[in-house]
C-alpha cells in the first residue's frame, strides 16, 4: 500500500476544513448559550458541586430510585431552584449550584439526608470553586498552552528550519481546534463539561501530535540531505510512506490503552481519555495529511534552498 498524500491533498484539506468549521459553528452556538465556546465546568466559572450516593447498607434507604423532582423541590426550598441535578445511577445524584458557604451546604446536606435517605459520607464528593480561582485556572491553562506553542516553535526552528516549525504549529492548531470543536458539539448535545483536566489533555495532545510531525519531518530532512536535487513532492510522499507503519503502530498502541481507560476507567478520567483519543488520532492524521502536504506546497512554490544549518543526526551522541 502506498499513500498518495500529495496528489489527493485538496481532499484532505477539505475534510479537515469541514470538521473544523462545524466545530466553530458549535462554538458560536455555545457562546450564545453559555457565554463560552465550551460548556464550562465549575472549575472555570465557580460554584459548588455535590455528588452523593445513598448508603444502601442502611435499612429502607434504597427501596426506590432517587426521584429528581423530589430533589428539585428540596433545592427550591433552599432558594437553589436554578441548580442543575443529575441522577448518576439509580441511587446517586450530582447537584451543581452557585457557590455555597459552609452553613448553606450543611443545611442542604441535612435536608437531603432527611428527605431522600441516608447518604454514604465515604462515597461523597464535594467541590467548591470560588469565581476568582476559576478565572485563575483558565488563564494559567491558556498561558501554559501559548508558552508550549512558542517553545515548540523555537525548538523546531533550531533543530529544523522555520518553515518546518510553522507548519508543525499549523498542524497543532488543527488538532487542538478539532478536539475543542468536538467537545463543543458534545457540550451542546449531551452536556459534556470541560474542566481543568481538559486543558491538560490539550497540552498533552500538543506534545504528542508534534511528535508525529517531527518523525515525518525528520525523514524528509534526511532524504533531502541525501539527495538534495529531488522533487519535494516525491520526497514528502516517500517520507510519509516510510514512516507510515510507525505512525499507525504507535497510534494503535496508545489508543489501545486510552480506549481501555475511556471504556472501563473511573468517571474522572473518562472524558480526559476521550479528548486524548480524538486529539491523538487527529495528531497522526494531521502529520500525515496536513503538515507534510503544506510543507511540500510551500517548498515547491517558494523553493527555499536547503541550508547547511539543519542539524545532522550524527552530531548527536547516541550512547
Amino acid at each position, binding site marked *: 500500500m502506498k499513500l498518495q498524500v500529495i496528489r489527493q491533498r485538496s481532499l484532505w484539506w477539505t475534510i479537515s476544513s469541514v470538521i473544523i468549521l462545524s466545530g466553530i459553528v458549535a462554538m458560536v452556538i455555545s457562546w450564545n448559550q453559555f457565554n463560552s465556546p465550551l460548556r464550562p465546568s465549575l472549575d472555570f466559572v465557580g460554584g459548588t458541586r455535590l*455528588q452523593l450516593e445513598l448508603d444502601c447498607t442502611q435499612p429502607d434507604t434504597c427501596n426506590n430510585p432517587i426521584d429528581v423532582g423530589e430533589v428539585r423541590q428540596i433545592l427550591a426550598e433552599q432558594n437553589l431552584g436554578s441548580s442543575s441535578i443529575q441522577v448518576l445511577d439509580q441511587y446517586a445524584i450530582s447537584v451543581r449550584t452557585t457557590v455555597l458557604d459552609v452553613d448553606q451546604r450543611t443545611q442542604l446536606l441535612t435536608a437531603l439526608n432527611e428527605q431522600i435517605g441516608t447518604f*454514604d*459520607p*465515604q*462515597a*461523597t*464528593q*464535594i*467541590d*467548591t470553586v*470560588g469565581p*476568582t*480561582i476559576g478565572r*485563575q*485556572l483558565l488563564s494559567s*491553562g491558556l498561558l*501554559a498552552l501559548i*508558552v*508550549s506553542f512558542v*517553545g*515548540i516553535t523555537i*525548538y523546531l526552528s533550531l*533543530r529544523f528550519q522555520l518553515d518546518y516549525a510553522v507548519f508543525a504549529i499549523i498542524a497543532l492548531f488543527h488538532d487542538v481546534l478539532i478536539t475543542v470543536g468536538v467537545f463543543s458539539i458534545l457540550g451542546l448535545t449531551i452536556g459534556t463539561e470541560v474542566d*481543568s*483536566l481538559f*486543558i*491538560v489533555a490539550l497540552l*498533552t495532545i500538543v*506534545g*504528542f501530535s*508534534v*511528535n*508525529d510531525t*517531527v*518523525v515525518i519531518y525528520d525523514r524528509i530532512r*534526511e532524504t533531502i540531505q541525501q539527495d538534495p536535487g529531488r522533487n519535494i513532492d516525491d520526497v514528502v510522499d516517500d517520507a510519509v510512506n516510510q*514512516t507510515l507503519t*510507525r505512525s499507525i*503502530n*504507535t497510534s*494503535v498502541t*496508545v489508543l*489501545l*490503552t*486510552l*480506549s*481501555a*481507560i475511556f*471504556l*472501563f*476507567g*473511573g*468517571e*474522572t*478520567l473518562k472524558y*480526559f481519555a476521550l479528548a486524548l483519543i480524538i486529539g491523538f488520532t487527529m495528531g497522526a492524521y494531521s502529520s500525515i495529511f496536513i503538515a507534510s502536504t503544506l510543507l511540500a506546497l510551500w517548498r515547491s512554490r517558494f523553493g527555499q534552498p536547503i541550508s547547511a544549518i539543519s542539524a545532522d*543526526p550524527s552530531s*548527536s551522541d*547516541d*550512547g
Partner: protein
Amino acid sequence: MGRQRLLLAVILALAFAAAVVIVVVPVRLGLDLQGGSQLTLQVKTTEAVPEITPEKLEAVQQVVENRINGLGVAEAIVQTVGEDQLLVQLPGVSDPGQAERVLGGTAQLDFRAQRSGTEEQLAIAFQAQQILLAEKERIQDSGDEEAIAQNQAALDQSNEAIAGFFDRTGLTGDMLQNAFAAPIGTNSWEVGLEFNQEGGEKFAELTRGVAGTGRTLGIFLDNELLSAPSVSAEYAETGITGGRASITGRFDAQAAGELAVQLRGGALPVPVEVSEIRTVGATLGRDSIQRSIYAGLGGLLLVLIFMVVYYRLPGLIADIALIIYSILTFAIFSLLNVTLTLPGIAGFILSIGMAVDANVLIFERTREELRAGKTLYRSVEAGFYRAFSSILDSNVTTLIACGALFWFGAGLVKGFALTLAIGVLVSMFTALTCSRTLLLVALGFPGLRKPRWFCPNLPPSTSSQAGATS
C-alpha cells in the same frame, strides 16, 4: 560482547534496586485517590496590608497550621502556593465543614493578664496539657482515629480551661508591630516584641499588674495559649515601658523562631478566605483508582501482546524493557516523593506510550535496513542510530509541553506534568540502553540470530545472506 554483558548486569541491578525501593518506600497517594479534603485559602490584602510578601505569607501559614493542629487531623499538610495562597490537605476528612469554619477569618492574637488566685490551678492545668500534647505527638501517625479525636477533645477542653484563668486586657495583635527571634549568649534565644504607641502603653499597664506577683501574662492566638511569661518584680512600679520587651525562657533557635512567626502571623490583620474545596470520600477515591488502574493495565497488556505479535523477537525484548521501564519510573516516583494523583497515573500510562513509540521507531528502522539487504547486526545498530534523532526531537517537544504545564499549572495538573516528564526521560534511557543491550546480548546467541524473527516476509536472498554473514 563483554561490554554488553556488563551493561546488562548494570541494568538488571538497577531494576532490582528499583524493585526494592518500590517495596520499601510506598508511593504517596493524592487526596483524590485516598480520600480527603483539599482547601485552597486565599490570603486577602487590606488597606493596612496592601501587599502579601513571602514573609507575611509564611506568618499566615503558621497561623493556619496552628488552627489545623486544633482539628486533630493526622498528616495534615499546609503549603504555600504562588504569592498569596495556601493549600491545606486533610487526608481522610469527608466533611470539610469544620475545617472551613476554623480556617476562614483573621487571626486573633491578644495579650491577657492572669486572674489572681489561679496560680496553682494554672500550673496544674498546664501540666495536664503537656501530657495531652505528648500523647498527641505519640498517636498522631497511628491512624487510630478514635484515640486522636478523644485526645483532641481533651485538648480543646484544657485550652478552654486555661483561657478561663485569664482576663482580656484590650491589647490585641494589631498593636504588635514586630516579633523576632534573637540570640542571647551562645546557646540561648529570646523573642523580642515591638508595640506601637497605644500597644506600648497597654503593655506597660498589663506588665505592671502582674510583675512580681507570680502570675503571668498570657499570649493567646485564636483563643489558645501560645506563651505565658512572667514579669520580674523590678517592673512592678512602672511596668515594661517604651513599647519593647523580650520573652526569655529555655528557647532554642527553632522554638524562638516558631513563636516569633506565630506572633507575627497573629498580628497580621489579613483575612483568609476559603476559595476552593475539593472533597473526595475514601471509598469513591478507592473505586476510581481501582477502575482506572485495571483499565490501564488491561490496555498495557494488549500493547505488550501487540508488540510481540508484530515485532517478534525485538517486540519481546521491548516488552522486557517496558517492564524494566515501569519499575524504574515507579521507583523514581517513590524516591522523589511524588504524590500520585489520578491524572498522575494517566501521565504515567501515557509515558509508557512514549516508551513504546521509541521502540517502534527503532524496530521499523531496523526492518528497513534488513530489507535493504544489510546484515542483522548492522541493521540493529543502524536502527538505533538512525532512530535517535526522531526519538530525541519528539521527546524534547513533549518535555516542552510538560514544562509549560508544570510551570503554570496547579495541583492535579502539576502532578500529571511531573509524572509524564519523569516517564519521558526514563523512557529515553530504557529505549536507548535497555532495549539495545538486551537485543545485542540476544544476538550473541547463534540460535536467536534469525532475520525472520526480526522481520517477516524478507526476500529469501537477503535473508540467507544476512543469516550467513551475521
